[in-house]
């Protein structure tokens, strides 16, 4: 039983960990998210 619970916790942790890293690497950041457009986001490159 303990082994089962441990594996479930492990799977959730791995999933969260990978998702966090993926979001960090691919994330646009806040400049383009709130206004919905690129105008005035201040980023030095064009938002996709």
């Amino acid at each position: 039983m303990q082994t089962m619970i441990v594996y479930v916790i492990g799977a959730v942790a791995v999933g969260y960990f990978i998702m966090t890293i993926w979001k960090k690497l691919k994330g646009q950041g806040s400049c383009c998210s709130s206004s919905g457009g690129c105008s005035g986001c201040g980023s030095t490159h064009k938002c996709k």
Partner: protein
Amino acid sequence: MGNDKVTVALVGNPNSGKTTIFNNLTGARQHVGNYPGVTVEKKEGYRKFKGHDFLIVDLPGTYSLTAYSLEEVVTRNFIVNDKPDMVIDVLDTSNLERNLYLTVQLLELERPTILALNMIDVADASGLKIDDAKLAQCLGDIPVVRTNGVHSKGMDILLGNILQHNDKEKKSKFRLNYGTDIENAIEKLEPLLMVANQSVQFPARWLALKLLENDTDIIDSVKEFTNAKRIMRVCNELRIELSTKLNEDIDIFVAGQRYQFVGKIYHQAVDNRLVSTVTVSDKIDKILTNRLFGLPIFFALMWLMFNLVFTLGKVPSNWIDAGFGMLGKYLTSIISDGPLKSLLVDGVVGGVGSVLVFIPSILLLFLAIAILEDTGYMARAAFIMDRIMGRFGLHGKSFIPLLLGFGCSATAMMGTRTLENPRDRIITMLVTPLMSCSAKLPVYTILIAAFFDEKIAGNVLFSIYLLGIILSLVMARVFRSTLFEGQSEPFVMELPSYRLPTAKSVLIHMWERSALYLKKAGTIILAASILMWFLTTYPKDVAYSQDYDAVLAQAEDSYTEQVKEEVLSKLGIADIEHNEKFTELIAALQENQEHFAKTTKELDEDSPEYDEIAKDKAEKNKKLEVANAERYSYAARYVELTQILEDEKDKVENAKSGENLEKSYAGQFGKTIEPAISPLGFDWRIGMSLVSGVTAKEVIVSTMGTIYSIGDGKENVHSMAKALKNDEHMNALVAYALMVFVLIYSPCLAALAVMRRETGSWKWPTVSMVYSTMLAWMITFIVYQGGKLLGFGG
């Protein structure tokens, strides 16, 4: 006016108090500080007032609306493209004349504008008298409201004025006459722009003026027009003609006209006869920014800050540490043996607990930073460092992002937006991670607590931060003379008046950072700790180098034999249990022994306290010897043999756990990288912690917590410092080398991601990661091998 959402933009010079007003209006807790450039991104917040919904947008501070730096573009584009219903121009009233320059430019954008005379208390105290009605009249009858952001005064009046004057169709009555030559040129350009201006948001007059000023951003926009060629041809002809007539650059002439106008308004609406020319801030600055004393005072303040963080933070940290120790013990007592128990005790409590222990230090660090920021000293620090920074090829303004780097590298990189020159920005971003961020503080604190005397602990911590500052300057010089050749631009920065920090602002700052730290502990650090537990616990079917069970059995046999031979046979008894007096004597001796071990746990063997407790134990034992003269020596021998057996069991158990750990997935990976880091004095466990630390620097400590907890072999939670002290691979020199490596090596993932976003490619994050790790290796090698040659580290 209907019940539509009213969009309000807060605009103004840097450090005029926009974010403070934003926080007052929206109830938000955005970071404020008494230095220019705190807000680098626009922030949005909401407010309901008299049945109306308000969307309040806090824009980065700017001195003008040219496209010189990023924050100017952000502000200008928002006003023009998003067309807020109302622009609130927040002015630092104590510096009214300078602030009015932006006001003139804002009014030329023809958006409904309200003037907020902020920091009115400071202006009043200095003796400045302002005729609000006259000021409003000079600026085309715009509403003027007096505000005091720090004490939240004038906010409702501001909102009331927004409701009263919110009319999208109403254009600003303001129009500044630039003289016949410029006005004629505008008149010629305007019709051309009106035809094509259908999809472009800028007012035609403003657009014409900007074209004449040769604003590159606007020229790029105009190039999209259908009649762009004609516009540019006419514009170029007009520019040549005007340059000859005016005998100076058009943009300089236009700026001059604006300054003249502002000067006139100021003299009409403001009475400054009572204002003293030398302010209190000037008097303080005479000392704090003195050419001779400025720098020593700055370093003395830094030294004081890190000493306070270490010494004051230690006490509550020890309480939290003890709390997690108790939690570990409690979990051990209620959960049956098995992997879940190990995961919770070694992985979660050992990992996350070791990070949370440092909350007090983080709070204190941000208390110190908040005080430096809110008093206005931060801007002075940049000023003091400018001459040094210039010699190393860094812009003086870069020092503010660098100082912010003491908090978080990712935030500091965003702070580089205040730098106009992209080369300065990239150099600053590359060297910012060398300033020790708060996430590295737990690593230093734990290593210093374990290996350095309390008397020099603060100095050791300060030396690491100082090394970071020195390295950042040296690396900036290297980058400036290799990748980014050229001179840095001159440094112009406003020194704000000194202010007493408000408790609210300081507490908000401390809370925000600590909440972020707690959030990280509950998310990414928790996930990393669980992951690390798996990597250090599995695979389970390890082929051991020796049969540990047989070794244990042999030790127990040997113990039984020795007890029989040296105790039982000498006393002529068959067993101990049935000899009551002898059992009592043994129990008393063991109690003495346990008490001694418990009370001397944290003490140095050379300390007077240790001697005192040892003396007390000897006296108690002596009494027992006198009372039990015949049996005493045998009982003492029995206690000694039992202790030897316990130690042997611990040793075998530790060796087994150590082998388990070494043969785990983490161990196997760590062993493969060990050859690369062994010249630095690091073993595979440190290597593994450093690799995991790239995700977030706090993870270094949580990984060490998990590894040392599992490596301990017993499911009880020791303090990390003690576990490190007991590690034979670790000593003061290795600890210092490790601190140096952690200071310098690769920025964390969040910082790398921000760098990618700010530079627009993965090129610079890759350069940052590679160069910093290589530099870390080289410097740490010098520190460790040099230290060994000098005889440090044992």
